[in-house]
Every structure is written in C-alpha cells, then in structure tokens.
C-alpha cells in the first residue's frame, strides 16, 4: 500500500523552524485526521508534505520515491493534491476553465474526469460558465476540491476545509471524502475542531507547538488526550507569580468588558 509520508521533518519559513521532528504518514484508502490548536503547525505540515515548503531536515516520500528534493509542481503529477488557504483557484477564469487547469496533467481523460466531478458536485455544473470570483466561499471550496480531483489524485491533503461552511455543507463534504477514501484515495485532513473528523477518520495525529504529541488509531485516542494537548497542562518551574503592578483597571471597567458578543 503506498504512502505519503514525512519522517523526522524540520521545516518552516525563513529562519523559523515551525516543525520539529514531525512524522506524519497517510496511506491509500486511509483517512488521517491531523488535529491541533492554532499555531501548532498543521498548515505547515500539509505544506511540507505536498512539497510547498523545503525541509530543513528529515525525509519526505511519495510512494516509494524520495520526494525531498522535488520541485512543487512535481507533486501533482505524482498524485498528491492540496486544498487550503489561499485557495488554488483562478478568480478570473470560469469554473470549467478552473477545472481544466486543475486537471491539466490528465488532459487526455479530461472529459470523463470532468463529468465525474460534476456528478459529485452538481453545483459546479450549474455554474460552469461563471467566473470563479463570483462563487460563494463554500462553492469556491468545492471548486478547489474539484480541481484536485481532476487529476485523479492518490492522496488528497485538506487544510481546514470546513472553515466558513454551514454544517450541511460540511456533512456533504465528509460524505464526499468517504466516497473518495472508499475508492482508494488517501486523505489527510487537518482540522482545528476535533469533532468534525473524529467520527470519520481511521487514525489521528495530534500536533502541538510544532511536534507530534499523539499518533494513534482513532479508537485509541480519548477526549482528554486531545484536550490536554490543546489547553496545555504544562507549567513552568520556578515561575514567578504574575504580578499586577500598577494596574489601574477599575472594577467597573472589567465588568463592562466581559462577555460582549
């Protein structure tokens, strides 16, 4: 079973190491949930695993091949697609043109693949001549996934796809992903809110402050595991108690400041 994997990866942006010794893998037909609070590095993991970031150290493999030195555009050809922020859609092009570009590595099968994508996401068919900039946020999300599907990927990496979507749309998306996983695609879904994926994925990787704190099949991961990773139970030794020197805040102010929706 072929895998898309990072092993002991160190990666980040100029001078900043966001990921430290991170190992994440997804196999075909597997649904892996990548969880963790904001700033933990989930987006960075996805960017690193799809070749958008260079690894400072560690390894990256696609199937059997060492993808450490691959240029970003090679990953799509190898069957690895990514959907995240900023969305890889083309605002001035129509939906159909967006899909055409999305599937440009599989031009020969374009018509069949386009039909398949329109079947999965009928709203795209209705809007196929509309410029992508005119679509709603949720529809643009669908378009981005549709673009990825146009190249029949082996692995699909999704960065918080539920953001900004109504619950019904999220449900539709999880159904879609189930279909894809059933048909052999390996899905790596990064999500801030565990509830969204916990009921669906087969294994979970929890990230905190750039390192993996838990990686296990979903059945072995408890709610409190996740909570402790998010809220942090570590504290400093010898930490001086926080002082409130010169605090001119008065009680009336603090009462007013609370819980203002």
């Amino acid at each position, binding site marked *: 079973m072929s895998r898309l994997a990072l092993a002991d990866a160190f990666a980040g942006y100029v001078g900043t190491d966001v990921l430290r010794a991170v190992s994440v893998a997804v196999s075909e037909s597997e649904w892996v949930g990548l969880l963790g609070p904001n700033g933990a590095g989930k987006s960075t993991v996805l960017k690193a695993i799809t070749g958008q970031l260079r690894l400072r150290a560690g390894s990256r493999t696609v199937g059997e091949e060492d993808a450490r030195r691959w240029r970003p555009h090679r990953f799509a050809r190898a069957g690895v697609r990514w959907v995240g922020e900023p969305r890889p859609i083309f605002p001035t092009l129509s939906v159909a043109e967006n899909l055409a570009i999305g599937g440009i590595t599989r031009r020969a099968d374009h018509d069949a693949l386009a039909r398949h994508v329109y079947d999965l996401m009928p709203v795209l068919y209705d809007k196929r001549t509309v410029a992508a900039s005119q679509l709603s946020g949720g529809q643009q999300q669908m378009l981005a996934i549709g673009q990825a599907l146009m190249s029949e990927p082996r692995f699909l990496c999704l960065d918080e796809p539920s953001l*900004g979507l109504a619950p019904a749309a999220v449900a539709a998306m999880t159904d879609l992903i189930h279909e894809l996983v059933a048909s052999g695609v390996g899905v790596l879904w990064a999500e801030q809110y565990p509830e969204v994926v916990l009921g669906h994925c087969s294994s979970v990787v929890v990230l905190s402050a750039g390192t993996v704190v838990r990686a296990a099949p979903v059945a072995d991961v408890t709610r409190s595991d996740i909570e402790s990773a*998010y809220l942090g139970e570590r504290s400093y030794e010898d930490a001086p108690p926080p*002082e409130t020197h010169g605090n001119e805040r008065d009680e009336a102010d603090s009462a007013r400041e609370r819980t203002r929706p």
Partner: protein
Amino acid sequence: MTRTSLRNAIGRSGALRKPGQRSVAGVSHLDGASSWVRQIRRQQVRSSGIAMLAVVLVIFGLLDQQQEYLLTGVTALTLAIAASGLGFALGLGGEFILGQLALFAVSSYVTAWLTVGHNWNFWVACVGGIVAAVLVGLVLSLVGLRTSSFYFALVGFFLVYLIPEITQIFSAQTGGTAGLAVPDIPSFFGTQLDTRGMFLLAAAVLVVALIFLDNLRRSPLGSHLRHMRDAPACLAVAGVRASTVRIVTYLVSSALAGAGGAIYSHITGYLLPTDFDLTTTVMLFAAVIVGGSTTLLGPTIGVLILYMLPNTVFNIQSYADLVYGATVLASVLLFRGRAGTVIGNRYRRIKDSMLRGGNRAGVSPDRPRAPGTSGSVDELVDILWGLREGRQQQAQAGPLLVRGIRKSFAGVAALDMSPETVMRTNPGEVHLLLGPNGSGKSTLLNAICGLVRVDGGTVRLGDTELTGLPAFRVARAGISRSFQSPSLPAEVTPRDLISSALCQLRSLSYLHWATLDRKARRALRESRRTAHRICAVTNLSAAENRPCVELTSGQRRILDVLLAVISGSRIVLLDEPAAGLSEAEREQLGRMVRGLARRGIGFLVVEHDLNLAFNIADCLTVMAGGRIVIHGTPDEVRSSASAREIFTGVKV
C-alpha cells in the same frame, strides 16, 4: 610560538569571552577591555579600505606619466563618485535610480554653462551644478514617491534618453549636438589644475564622498534604508517615515552624481551630449553590480574594472556594447548581484577568526545556546529599563483604549466590535489576546498600530487620539510592535541592528551622522557597547556578529521583540511571539515579558500557545468572529466553559 598556538593559548585563558558565559563582576572589566580592543581593530579594518584607496590614487596621480591614462583615470573617478551614490541607493535602499547619469549630465552642463557663459569661478560653478542635479533629482523623486519603483526607473531611463533633445532645445546654452567647448581651466590657490591636478581633485572628492557614505551607512539612516528595502512595515512601526528616508537617499545620491558631473565638465575641455548615453547608464549599473552594491567600495571597484580596464588595457570601443552587455549579464547571473558581498563574506570570516583568536563562536542551528537562568533575564530587563529612565517623560503614561473597532476587507467583516466594547491595556499589565484563526486578532493589532485604516471605532493612548494616524505617527506616540514573521535585513548583524535602534533613541539629525561629529561618535560607541551587553544576556550572544540571515528562528524572534521593546514605548504589541520558539525559549520570553511588565511596560500579546498565555497574563481577552467574547483573569478564563468550547471545539 606560532600564531595559531598563540591564538589558542589566548582562547584557553578565557581572556576572550566564550559564548554561553554569563558576565560575572570580575571578568566583565576584562571583557570590556578586550571588546574595546576588538572595536578599535574593527574600526581600523573598516577604514583601511578607504585609506588604501586614497594612497593608491595619490601614488597613481603623482607618478603616472601617461597622459591618456590620467585622462581615462579622472573620467573613471568622476563616474565612480556617481556610481558610489547609486550603489548607496541601490544596495542599501533597493532604489533603481536609472536616471543617475542624467543627473550627472545636468550637473556637467550647468557647471560648464556657468563658467563659459557667465564667467563664474569654477568652484562656485561646481556648487551650482550640484544644486541643479539635486533639484532635478528631487523632482524625479516626487515621481518615485507617487508610483512604483519600476515606473521610477523607467522615468529615469527616459530622462537619459532625452539628453540629446534637451541639449538641442537649449542649444544656445549647451551648443546642441555640436557640443560645448569648455576652455576654462580651474585654478586651486593659484596653481592651474591640469589633468593631473584634476585627477587629484577627483580622487580627493571621491575619498571624502566615501567617508561621508560610510558614516551614513553606519548611522540609523543606513539601518532605515535596509529596512525600507527588506521590510517597509517594520520601518513604519519604528516611527520612521519612509518618504523622509527616501528623499534623503535621493538627495545624497543626486548630490554625488552632481559632484562627479561638475568635475567631469572641466576635464576634456569639451562636452558632448553623446558622452551621456544609454550604454554608459547600463555600464554604471553594471559597475555597481559587479563591484557589489551593498559594499562601500564595490561601485568604485566596479567602475575600475568596467571603465578603466577596457579603455586602457584593452581597446573595446567598437565592442563596447557587447562587452558591457555580456558583463552585466554575467555578473548578475554569477553573483546574483552580490559580488562584493560574496567576497565580503569570505573576508569577514577570515577577519572574524583572526579577531576571535581561534575561538570560533560556533552556531549550531539545531541547538541554540541554553537559555540564561533567571539571573540573566533580570539583567536584560535591568539594561532595557536603564535605557528608558531618561525617556519615561517622553512616552505617554496612559492606558491603551480600543473602542468598538469595525473593519471589513472586500465586504467581509474582519472586525465587528459593538460600539460599547472597550478593550484596555494598562502600562505594567500583560494582556493576552486569544482566539481561533479568523477571529480578527491580527487585524486588531494592525488597526491599533495604524497599518490598517478602520471603518469605525477609536484607538486612544491616554489622552492622545490615535485613530486614523499613519503607522509611523502611532509609533512615535508610544506604541511599538513585533511581527509574526520578523523581516530583518539580511546582511546586518544583530548587534548592529540593536545598536542602530539605540542610536535612534538619541534623535540626532542626519547631519550629525553624516559628519560623524563628537556627539554621533559618542552615541555610536555607547550604543554598540550597550548592544553588546544586551546580546550577551540573551540567546543572541553566539550570533552577535553574524548576519541576520544566519540566525535561528528563536534568535530572530528574540531580536524582533528586543527591537520592539527598546523603542521606549509604554505599550508594546507582540504578534505571536512564541511561534517557532522551543520550550526553553518560550520560557525565557515569558520571563522577559513579565520582568518588563513589572517595570511598568504594558504588553498586548496575540498568542496561540495557551500554556504560555495563562502563565504570563494578567488578563486575557478572547475573540471570535471579529468580536470580543470573553475577558477576565487567567483563572476566570480557564474555568469558563465557553472558552473551553472555543478552543477545543469540544462541546462541554
């Protein structure tokens, strides 16, 4: 003893501080002396380049017998003066002044016209020429300020192209395409300046110009220029107005073009508009790039290579275009524009290893030096606080009040606080701002410091209204910030950066810096010493003299936070300061923030690391969907069910 073993012996005896050593009372005195020695040596090494150049030029000028070499030489020198000005603007500020040769030409023609047509004295005419060049340069700069760098470059290029036409329009004064005869021979205290004399004059002007540029490079202006090139937002939040920096740069570079042009006008006895053509413009740029735009002597070396060599050793007149074109291409490709810096890096490494006496400060990117114990953080706080003693009166003492901010981007509301909502940060308080992605935290910080214009609401610091003010004014009013991904100028060292920030606190005018008078020299000395002390007690000591591009993430982060804190503001905004930091570094950061807060500085910190947040906060504000949802002390927030729900998405 061989030199290597002597160096090792010195290293082992500990007279030179090893990284990781805290300075203890007895050793610090020694440390001070040896660092003084290092400073003097460094000073010598820096000025040695200019001194060597001066010596070479004088020897050449006095001894050389060949008339045509002298002639080519003096032309090269005038071009070198203009090139140095261009290199300053290009290398440090990223300004593509394609019109530099046009300013050179303006000055030449005006100087010639003043001596020929109006019988002015040469020296006074030179001043006239320089003034003319500066005026035209300022007009061009207005275009540069209004439009992008690309259009600015284009306009400059067009101006050079126009030179033949303009001379034709003013043909009465300039002789048109036939040229202008300049029979005047300048005299210097009675002696007539022949070609040799002009050579020495040009050499003297070049050396003075280089010293002047060197001073400016080391001054806060140099630092500002680099920031303008690499990180314009950082400039604004440091309280510096970018357009001022730009105008001063154009002034300096125009003046130098003017100086070169003025001397040029009286060298050959004849001025032709074809002297100032597009090929020469390209050659000027090529010279700056080949020699190295970020170094001081680079442009001069470039002109020597590209102008003198082809015109003396090889005769390339008919092949000029081919040679220059190929050279520009080759140099850009080979060095990506950094010939001088590549060589400079090697040179600096050799210099470093000589000065450190074999005790190389190794930088291990994977394992930054172990953080100081609480003692050294206290020391850091003492140093930083000591800087502020004198400045307390200047900064506002009031709290930061943010009321009802609304901001939309392209119809989507990023911030949507209701008008009665008030968020308050007092000096001496650590106020944490938390919330999921898209809750508006970063937008709020940008709104407070003026990088983003709000649609509604107010920001006040004490009694001062800050809403709608441009970023540099907000910074001057007393708010500073650090950034999520700190952009630091690549080739500068942390020590230089901190030293520049400290120098800026003294508010000396650019004139002081240009001439490097006693006040400026003292400011520089003290700032460098303080910068060294600051670096010594943080994780920067190992990389104090490494260019910023080589720093680890933790070091960059600490440096950015330090720069924000040094500014003297009473309220400091920190944007995800812990991102990329190791556990130990987060701890040190936390201690530093708490220590400074104890001294009365207010912090508004956006952070995702809840652990760190709860440990250092006096109060926390949680945002969601552009609004403030919860506010309270750490205990209150930690035990709040809605907070847990926001953070974990787990419905309780």
